[in-house]
């Protein structure tokens, strides 16, 4: 469901800007908060409340999901089974991805030879297209797993889920906006999806950062260029909640990515085009009005040429 107003922010822990963003949006009424990405620390939101200085109501999405797991054993077992299937699917994807990414990187690194640049460029295009095709295939398989689960279990029609949805709808009815914090992106995404929280938000503005911004997009991409183990290939995890389109947010990009490495930057931009691949570091901000984007000055996107440039309309 595409929303008409979504504001994506940089990480909030050290340099919070949420209060300014909320004030600029002239939100009236309390702010509903989702901190399910913090998992068992979900309720430790005092710092955020102090920062906002106003009335904030935590929807307790993580806690509600735990309650569902406890009280609906059939759904709980099915969720675990779905997790196992998704894990296997992802492991299989990762095997193919390693080879496809290695080929694309090698070709992008290869020097142009006089008179043969067209041949090299054609191979580069094909290598990147192979990665995109693989991503698409993986996404389709993951969607199949989710659809099979939803068709079989119909989670939104189960009594305990309905109960929690009614409570959240009641809270949201009195709120002027929703904010979605970061944390564990999969814990957050799956719990928001379990309750179809966005279906309850109607057209209220949404503010999101870090994993919150990732979960609300069309596709969730996990990334780190320099992990202590492994190859550092960004991985398409699954579909997001699609509250907005056209931007792929990369939180903590300066820390997690080699933004000076033109090959890596170019590959990331080309792989996920036509979305704008945007670095969300501290103090960055982009706003979606339902049809187009506006990026604050200094909010940068990765380009197909391998450099960083101002993010903006799309």
């Amino acid at each position, binding site marked *: 469901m595409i929303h008409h107003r979504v504001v994506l922010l940089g*990480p909030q*822990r*050290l340099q919070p800007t949420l209060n300014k963003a909320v004030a600029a949006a002239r939100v009236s009424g309390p702010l509903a908060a989702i901190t399910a*990405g913090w998992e*068992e*620390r979900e309720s430790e939101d005092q710092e955020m409340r102090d920062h906002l200085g106003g009335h904030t109501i935590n929807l307790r999405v993580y806690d509600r999901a735990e309650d569902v797991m406890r009280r609906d054993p059939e759904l709980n077992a099915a969720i675990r089974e779905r997790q196992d299937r998704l894990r296997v699917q992802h492991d299989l994807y990762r095997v193919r991805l390693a080879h496809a990414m290695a080929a694309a990187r090698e070709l992008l690194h290869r020097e142009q030879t006089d008179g043969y640049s067209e041949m090299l460029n054609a191979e580069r295009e094909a290598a990147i297209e192979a990665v995109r095709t693989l991503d698409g295939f993986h996404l389709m398989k993951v969607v199949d797993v989710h659809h099979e689960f939803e068709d079989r279990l119909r989670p939104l029609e189960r009594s305990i889920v309905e109960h929690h949805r009614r409570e959240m709808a009641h809270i949201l009815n009195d709120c002027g906006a929703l904010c979605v914090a*970061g*944390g*564990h*992106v*999969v*814990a957050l995404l799956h719990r928001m999806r379990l309750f179809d929280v966005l279906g309850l938000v109607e057209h209220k503005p949404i503010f999101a950062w*870090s*994993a919150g911004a*990732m979960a609300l997009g069309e596709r969730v991409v*996990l*990334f*780190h260029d320099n*992990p*202590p*183990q492994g190859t550092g290939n960004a*991985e398409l995890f699954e579909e997001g909640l699609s509250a907005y389109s056209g931007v792929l947010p990369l*939180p*903590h990009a300066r820390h997690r990515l080699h933004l000076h490495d033109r090959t890596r930057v170019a590959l990331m931009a080309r792989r996920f085009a036509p979305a704008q691949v945007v670095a969300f570091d501290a103090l960055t901000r982009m706003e979606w009005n339902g049809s187009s984007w506006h990026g604050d000055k200094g909010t940068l996107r990765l380009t197909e040429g391998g450099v960083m440039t101002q993010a903006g309309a799309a």
Partner: protein
Amino acid sequence: MKGLAHEIERSATMGAAAVAALIEGKQFPVVEGRTVTFVFRGDVDEVRLRHWIHGLPQAQPFHNVPHSDLWFLAIDVPEGSRMEYKLEIVKRDEHRLIQDPLNPNVALDPYGANSVVYTAGYAVPDWSLHDNDARPGEIRDHEIKSAAFGETRRIQVYLPARYRPTRRYPLLVMHDGEDYVRYAALKPILDNLIHRLEIPSMIVALIQSRDRLNEYADDARHAKFLAEDLVPQLESHFPLVGKPSARGLAGASFGAVASLAAAWRYQGFFGNLLLQSGSFAFTDIGKHDRGAVFDPVVRFVNAFRRQPGHPAEHMFLSCGVYESLIYYNRSLVPFLQKAGLDVRYVEANDGHNWENWRDRLREGLSWLYPGPLWMVYE
């Protein structure tokens, strides 16, 4: 001879003033590619470089610039190396070991400090330095009533930032843990790796022994202390996962022997071993030549090699290539793999010292205890 050393030799023919001008303003030792040039100034009879690089002469004499108090030595050291050393100064038959007065870089250890030189390509890892953004954990004192040793032992326990009793944490027990804190920057490393999500929030027990050469050398009491006193008491006091996959032992040198020996005696209890520069001396034939303190170690490693069993699921081994122990560690790796163990082995251009062990902690800890790096974006 090449580089600065060659220049010094040439300048020497032009007099002491020319040599002084040449070395003026330089920080020593000077590193030029693989060549490291040491300089000493003083009215002495001899100067020697003392280091602990296995395979090289351990005392290398400096050359004196004629009619001057200047001494120098150029040696070949591979790039990406850390080399700890002292200078041996000889005057009127009196020998003194000193830190290099021209080198501000020192590495601390329980016996004092050594001078240290870094060759091209080596940098102190940023994840070992204090980071203001990383929430700090806390180190608390704790007591363990030990039936194995018949006494109460004081240990320290690292608790991660945002520690909460309602969570469940993995456990790592570090031999010589207080030394790891003092000399291998363990506290900022844990803070940083947890902050960077490269390892999970975890609890680390820091144990010390007053008699480590005996207790760490496959002493049955020590293994019993770990498995029957320490871990059960920690698991009843702290919120620990309490499964083999979330329990580990770590140590360097004899601490590595103690870790492997305890895991071997209590198979299935510890899932992870981090073994740094293990003193894993063994004999295929004849007697060893490492002194009596190694007798129980050699007996243990020989027995282990005869019947390795399955001491842990995952083992991370590291060793410096300048250590005499490199032979034993390299020998152990294919043997462990053949025994069906999941082994990660890394080497470094470094010696048997705490900063070598510090520099390998990120790779070892994050392999044994992978953090939620890919999933968490705060």
